[in-house]
């Protein structure tokens, strides 16, 4: 519990800041205080104003109103360099390093230790890098180029770099969104280490286990406004979610029971050496099948093989009784399969293209008249789908990359739903999107299933699996370890199977 009278002045204090972009108010009247040695979590849906706050602290945006104090002194961060100089380090979800330069040079670019005649002293550079990484408790070869480092390691390099710049305030913008469980745990340990050394941390995450595992204080934002700030131990995930969305959590998994129809997709004995082995499952109309398991269990690989993106070595895939040729996404699409990939930015969308172009991509032929696509048709079609899925966008002509994560995901969904598939395969449909949009995606899945669509969903989130699935196929190291009925499954039975100890659950 911080005691404002006894404690040293806060490392950073935002007082009633506001920022508008044109007519859009991104943040209004938000106050936030970061104390040395404490982790402050920022929770809120996408669009709640978190990113704008981060950009203020990074010196990218200047608040229209309100003040920023560092160690009790009012400060204006004119540009990113000023923020850096003030000891503020922003760690992004996906760091931008120099892939061709060594880790050491990534840390010390333009600040390399120099020796005689201003030449770079490589030995000192290496030693400094090793020391800096050791402070974080990681060992990486300083001479190794940054290309090929995992995102987790890249973040650590970024943090080490910030430490070497004497940063005291760390702003972490969804650092764990792309990390595996172990990597996220390692990052959490690093964050605790930073705090122990007196750093103040602002931590943004959509994952409540992390927020509650790490944070001392939690601030909730909604629609650009400050909702609450409380010590973490006085809150529960449920209260936080309620404050974030302004409604009850139960609405998150609006699963409506359906009566399954005929079997649409049947997979038997699917095997790809080194990835998965002897996977069989079937999905009926109106049914949602979840593929659960730990990261690396091979779930994405299975659905990619089913859809024909990857080849497989043995097994068959039949759609509505007819065998599907292997390795042909075109045949899969023609047979009525649709795959919404996990990585929407890389595989699901052409970010530079407009919303309307993106939604039309799967049906270029069908939308074309005499072989010609007209913008008008694309636009009309895009409007129809964006309205149906309630996509928030600044016009269908704006590039897809400018939309928020949740809205991007909806565009991907729209693109595939427009093909009127019989089987919809969703790989991590709600990864990295905010709670409100998550609920909408779930509601949509429910509706689609109710209308007779068969849905296969790969998900790493247990609540999502338990809340949405009619049946759950659990994979462990490329093998199916259990098939559980959705309603009867519990977090324990799924986890037991996912870790390879199904016990009597199967």
């Amino acid at each position: 519990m911080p005691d404002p009278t006894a404690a040293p002045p806060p490392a950073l204090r935002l007082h009633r800041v506001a920022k508008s972009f044109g007519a859009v108010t991104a943040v209004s009247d938000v106050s936030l205080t970061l104390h040395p040695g404490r982790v402050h979590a920022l929770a809120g849906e996408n669009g709640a104003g978190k990113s704008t706050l981060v950009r203020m602290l990074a010196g990218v945006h200047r608040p229209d109103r309100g003040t920023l104090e560092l160690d009790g002194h009012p400060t204006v961060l004119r540009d990113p360099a000023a923020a850096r100089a003030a000891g503020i380090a922003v760690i992004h979800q996906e760091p931008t390093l120099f892939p061709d330069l060594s880790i050491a040079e990534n840390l010390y670019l333009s600040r390399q230790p120099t020796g005689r005649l201003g030449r770079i002293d490589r030995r000192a550079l290496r030693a400094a890098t090793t020391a800096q990484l050791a402070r974080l408790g990681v060992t990486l070869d300083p001479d190794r180029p940054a290309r090929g480092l995992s995102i987790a390691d890249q973040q650590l390099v970024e943090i080490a770099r910030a430490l070497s710049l004497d940063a005291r305030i760390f702003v972490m913008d969804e650092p764990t969104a792309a990390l595996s469980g172990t990597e996220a745990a390692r990052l959490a340990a690093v964050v605790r280490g930073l705090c122990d050394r007196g750093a103040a941390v602002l931590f943004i995450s959509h994952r409540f286990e992390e927020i509650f595992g790490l944070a001392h204080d939690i601030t909730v934002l909604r629609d650009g406004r400050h909702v609450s700030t409380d010590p973490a131990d006085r809150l529960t995930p449920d209260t936080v979610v309620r404050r974030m969305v302004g409604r009850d959590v139960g609405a998150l998994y609006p699963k409506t029971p359906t009566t399954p129809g005929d079997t649409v997709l049947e997979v038997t004995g699917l095997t790809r050496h080194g990835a998965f082995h002897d996977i069989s499952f079937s999905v009926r109309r109106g049914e949602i099948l979840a593929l659960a398991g730990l990261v690396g269990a091979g779930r994405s690989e299975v659905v990619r093989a089913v859809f024909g993106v990857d080849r497989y070595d043995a097994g068959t895939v039949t759609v509505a009784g007819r065998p599907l040729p292997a390795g042909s996404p075109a045949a899969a699409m023609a047979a009525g399969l649709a795959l919404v990939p996990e990585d929407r930015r890389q595989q699901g969308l052409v970010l530079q293209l407009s919303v309307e172009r993106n939604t039309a991509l799967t049906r270029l032929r069908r939308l074309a008249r005499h072989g010609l696509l007209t913008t008008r048709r694309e636009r009309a079609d895009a409007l129809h789908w964006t309205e149906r899925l309630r996509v928030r966008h600044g016009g269908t002509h704006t590039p897809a990359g400018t939309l928020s994560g949740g809205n991007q995901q909806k565009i991907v969904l729209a693109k595939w739903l427009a093909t009127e598939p019989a089987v919809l395969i969703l790989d991590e449909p709600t990864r990295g999107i905010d709670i409100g949009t998550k609920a909408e995606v779930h509601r949509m899945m429910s509706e689609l299933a109710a209308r007779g669509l068969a849905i296969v969903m790969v998900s790493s989130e247990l609540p999502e699996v338990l809340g949405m699935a009619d049946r759950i196929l659990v994979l462990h190291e490329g093998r199916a370890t259990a098939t559980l009925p959705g309603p009867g499954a519990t977090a324990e039975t799924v986890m037991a199977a996912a870790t390879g100890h199904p016990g009597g659950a199967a």
Partner: protein
Amino acid sequence: MTRAHPRELGVLAALLLLIAGTAAANPRFLSAQSVRDLLLSAAILTVLAAGQTVVVLTRNIDLSVGSVLGLAAFGTADLLATHPGTPLPLAALAGITIGALCGALNGALISYGGVPALVITLGTLYVLRGAAHSWAAGRQINAADLPRPFLDLGTATVLGIPLLALLATAVVLAVALWLHSYRSGRELYAIGSEPAAAARAGVPAGRRIRTAFLLSGSLAGLAGVLYAARYGTVDATAGQGMELQVVAAVVVGGVAIFGGSGSVTGAALGALLLTCIGSSLAVLRVDPFWQQAVVGALILAAIGLDRLLTTRLAARAARTAPEVSRAG
């Protein structure tokens, strides 16, 4: 950074193989005179390649170097022909200055105008060539018009090694030292490797890019002076088409065309390799058409190799960190 550079070693191996093969077929290929000629021919290309490397590292390109060379060569020769008393260092400085001005122009247009270097230097390629033509007005300066000591520079040797080759080596070593061991040199790699990260790290990208073009222009100016000294006959077409040879040398030498990696030593080896191919195919009496085809194939091989290495590295990273992009 002290690790072995496989690309440079690869080019070196190809070079040695080519020399050994040609020498086996025709031992005169390794005669002192023939080697001297080879080094002389490679020297000018190497100087240009050193400048081009610096530019390409920053994810830019300088297509104007052939025209800059022509302008500087003609300028230097004209100065010496009309004022035969000009001290040679001053004449050389004049040539380099012409190049530096052209490079400064390129750099300013690119960094202030925000226009891709490809377009700007394609423009200056024609503009500067036009300037050379209008300056020369059809004149050709012949060896007879130039002072003897200047022409001697083109053929002089030190301990049997052509002076021009030594000069080119000195240029390569100096640029290599800068790129390898100085902060500003490393920043060029950073700019080419990831411009966004460079901006965030506070690298003065505009200034560094202007410096790169200034250097490329100056070295093209120097190359012009060397060209005039070596050939003695200079008109407005000097160095025409040279820019593509230079880019070829740089790419074959392992400098990534999208910037961020490669070395000037590699580029110099590339220049040497291309020159060698030219003379060895001539020695072997191979149709000149094949000479061009071989150069083309080499460029494709070099780029293919880069792609392969990059994808393999990425694949290895994906294997060592399985499914990093997956939420846990």
